[in-house]
């Protein structure tokens, strides 16, 4: 793992957290979306916060697919878990949501558990891809 790759993981984590946060800000301004009119969800795409959230999630997505090209899925997901802590802090401080002690404990456990994984190898050798791999069939 190079410094550049750690930087990509950090960007991934921050963009995922803020993307969800901006979406929540946008959705808080919307009326309740009932299951009788599920297509109403498309109407929220004009909300500035939702647009900002989508843009941030596009940045997240770029980092995500780049990281998946050189690391296992079971490495990438936990490696970015610190985002849960950021999400809880943003929810409590900015959105004034009530984050209970048990939720904090849960977030801590999740972070500890998944952080565990980052101490192992990031990629399963011989799983495919890589510099010298032949161009594979990219279609299902």
């Amino acid at each position: 793992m190079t410094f550049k790759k750690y930087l990509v993981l950090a960007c991934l984590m921050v963009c995922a957290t803020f993307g969800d946060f901006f979406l929540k800000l946008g959705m808080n301004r919307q009326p309740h979306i009932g299951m009788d009119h599920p297509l109403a969800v498309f109407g929220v795409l004009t909300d500035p916060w939702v647009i900002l959230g989508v843009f941030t999630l596009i940045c997240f997505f770029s980092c995500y697919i780049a990281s998946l090209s050189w690391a296992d899925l079971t490495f990438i997901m936990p490696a970015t878990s610190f985002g849960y802590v950021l999400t809880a802090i943003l929810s409590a401080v900015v959105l004034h949501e009530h984050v209970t002690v048990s939720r904090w404990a849960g977030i801590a456990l999740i972070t500890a558990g998944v952080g565990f994984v980052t101490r192992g190898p990031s990629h399963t050798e011989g799983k495919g891809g890589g510099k010298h791999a032949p161009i594979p069939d990219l279609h299902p």
Partner: protein
Amino acid sequence: MRNIPLSIWPILVVFIVLSSIGDVLMSKAMTLIGDLGVVRREHGIAGAVGRVLGSGWFWLAISSMAGSFFTLLIALNRADLSFVVPASSSFSFILNTLAAKFYLRERVDARRWTAAGLVCVGVFLLTK
């Protein structure tokens, strides 16, 4: 505000399943394509983008992720961010770990299984 209505659970289940399918298929697509840094050095940015956009697995993953995105919007409209995001992501983590072992053939060792167990307990605490 603490707000976890019962009606959120079916929405979360749909979100988790679509999200996991999207993650697993995207991992498959990117593994087949190879390290994007290397592909970019050898074929340029256009070559790398072309290789990603030319992958059928990539588009299958995108379709699933788009479905999960709109389900997430509905979930966020009904419950707290601090509940929706960690709970759904953590369940997705377990599903993804299983799919990674049995479908993607990743080496999921004791360290990664332990992490999955800790995440399960974390999820239980999170929903209390």
